[in-house]
């Protein structure tokens, strides 16, 4: 940064984004379209490659190697965004008073506005025994490279967790020829998002179509290494499971350490309002690290809406644009037995509704309708899965 013209400093001080995941790059693209002039610096602890994270759980069956998931490398992204991208760089502190961030070797960088897009990391459960040896988790491209190597020679994999990632990986690995057992404390897969009847059907279908062995309503009590690559899992229902490795997909923890140390308000994520502004008016957050208006969710679709709102606010120099999510569909990437859902949202607390379920030979349509029979959410599976657009249109038009 040239500092021989101090009077122009503030104009030439960049917008700084911490993180080069989907949140960082999708926002950068949205903002750069509206502001071609302000300098942009992206600081990332990895190699800055732009890749599609949702592909990580389906790349294997598509015969894609980790490197084929890369859409553009850091140099290409820097060129496209007219940005400086500092790769392999760990941000160690945010100095809000001085408007600087500090990284690795004590170097500092001034920011005009700072956007936190630093993501989340896999939640590490603490289990007695040889956990480190047995366990693997996948949350970024680097993890995925390791995971592919880790899988070699393994035949039976236990997956911890039955959320989106756990269920998708269970499907992927079973179709790739692995024997898969899912260990989950939930009563059925996707229990945070879909009703029991849909979850039970999904479980049953993935068992009969892919051979997935579901161990539900149990927790993992311990892991004992028998020898290298051979582990005995002790479950809370007193049963045992002998596997070659454990893939942990029990959820994420937002990376809030930097924000906390800087004295920003955090809860499950960095707390931001509907304009994506944190408790510091010059610092914003989006993606997996942000709790937006009390809502922390690690999905892709919200990133697009957040990016548009934040880009508008930063360009306008105010915080007037407010986030409003439309109804969003989430598609479970289990090609053998597809499932799409839209989480019901009710505008007022007192509103109520109920699930109405139609089922025909293993295919299900579950509709959540309010007291006025308006569609508020749904789950569609199997042959019904392709109806998700029609149902989404019904929600948005009402």
């Amino acid at each position, binding site marked *: 940064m040239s500092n021989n013209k101090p009077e122009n400093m503030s104009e030439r001080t960049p917008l700084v984004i911490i993180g080069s995941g989907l949140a960082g790059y999708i926002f950068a693209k949205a903002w750069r379209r509206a502001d071609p002039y302000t300098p942009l610096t992206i600081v990332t602890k990895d190699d800055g490659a732009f890749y599609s994270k949702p592909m990580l759980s389906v790349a294997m069956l598509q015969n894609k190697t980790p490197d084929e998931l890369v859409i553009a490398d850091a140099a290409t992204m820097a060129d496209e965004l007219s940005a400086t991208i500092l790769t392999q760089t760990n941000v160690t502190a945010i100095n809000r008073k001085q408007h600087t961030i500090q990284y690795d070797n004590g170097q500092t960088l001034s920011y005009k506005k700072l956007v936190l897009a630093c993501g989340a990391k896999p939640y590490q459960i603490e289990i007695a025994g040889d956990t480190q040896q047995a366990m693997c988790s996948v949350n970024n491209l680097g993890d995925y490279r390791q995971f592919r190597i880790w899988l*070699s020679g393994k035949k039976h994999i236990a997956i911890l967790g039955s959320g989106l990632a756990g269920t998708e990986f269970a499907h992927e690995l079973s179709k790739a020829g692995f024997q898969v057992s899912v260990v989950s404390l939930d009563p059925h897969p996707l229990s945070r998002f879909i009703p029991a009847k849909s979850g039970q059907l999904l479980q049953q279908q993935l068992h009969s179509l892919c051979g997935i062995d579901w161990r539900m309503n149990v927790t993992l009590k311990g892991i004992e290494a028998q020898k290298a690559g051979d582990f005995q899992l002790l479950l809370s229902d007193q049963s045992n499971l002998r596997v070659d490795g454990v893939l942990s997909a029990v959820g994420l923890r937002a990376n809030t350490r930097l924000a906390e140390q800087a004295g920003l308000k955090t809860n499950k994520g960095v707390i931001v309002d509907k304009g994506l502004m944190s408790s510091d008016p010059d610092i914003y957050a989006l993606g997996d690290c942000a709790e937006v208006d009390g809502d922390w969710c690690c999905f892709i679709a919200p990133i697009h809406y957040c990016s548009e709102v934040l880009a508008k606010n930063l360009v306008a120099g105010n915080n007037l644009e407010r986030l409003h999510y439309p109804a969003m569909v989430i598609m479970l990437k289990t090609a053998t037995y597809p499932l799409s859902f839209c989480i019901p949202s009710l505008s007022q607390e007192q509103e109520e509704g109920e699930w109405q379920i139609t089922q025909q030979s293993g295919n299900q349509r579950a509709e959540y309708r309010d007291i006025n029979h308006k569609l508020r959410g749904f789950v569609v599976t199997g042959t019904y899965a392709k109806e998700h657009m029609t149902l989404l249109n019904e929600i948005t038009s009402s």
Partner: protein
Amino acid sequence: MNDRLIKALTGQPVDCVPMWLMRQAGRYLPEYRAIRAKIDFNTLIKTPSLCCEVALQPLARFDLDAAIVFSDILTIPDAMGLGLYFTAGEGPCFERPIQNAADIAALGVPDMYTDLGYVSEAVATLVAALKGRIPVIGFSGSPWTLATYMVEGKSSRHFERIKSLLFNEPATLHRLLELLTESVKQYLQAQINAGAKVVMLFDSWGGVLDTDNYRSCSLAYMRDIVHDLKQSVLSQHVPIILFTKGGGGWLTDIADTNCHAIGVDWTVNLGTARQQIGHAAALQGNLDPVALYAKPATIKQLVKQMFESLGDKTGYVFNLGHGILPATPPEHVSVLVEAVKRYGQVTQTARETGHVKQQT
């Protein structure tokens, strides 16, 4: 990606015959010798970043259509605990060679992540460095070839120890071969998982066997490996090359394994080989490595003759008949590459004909 190699190995038409060279990264390159002056071979193959650097060296000089992971065929026995070391005169040796049935009973399949993860890392590092420019070839020694080193303890002239085992205690030898086969399956799968787009089995010593024992001790296990890789969703799209040095008499048997391609040494005439196997498998080879000591004009002439002998260029990969020799002048390799690019051109008509042949 330049996918000429994959196309040729799967019998699809190409614009020009693809080429790579066995041991293309090696002692004939001064930049390789410079690294080896600082680092011993064992450390080199166990350091993925250096393996990557070395594997890229020939690509900076020559327009080759594939990279091959820099490693050694004896990593599996080493991981089984035999203690691989290298001597200047004798090549690879084992500290604790297999002596008897009890030694074999004590062996297990190595863990591909903890024991052999450095090879997968080397593949992944190379794949990442190439950014999809050209495919990376992964490889392993064949079970029989690995067994010869494990029992002999080093390179051998008459293979007396392993052949004694074969003739006196065949069941014991087959137990070793079965264990090696399972290891090789996992090892190749690991390299494929790390990003290898093609794999090759080096059966360097299959040619020392009589026909019956070649079939039962070498080929049967390679067939099992081919079958296994074709079963798995993760590897079924990856072409497999089988190379039995001295195996020119068994080409139809090798093609019968369902492998994608057969490596041939220089004792085989390419046209005759093609007549024998038809298009059941692609062919790879087979210029005598010593021919690279010849004058540039001779090298060009030899390449031209190879293509004339071959005829139809569909399903063919240019290579040497064995690894490139240390005394080869790198400039002669440039001459070779230029000649292959020239004489290996495939005309539009030939490409279309090739395509029709593929479909019928």
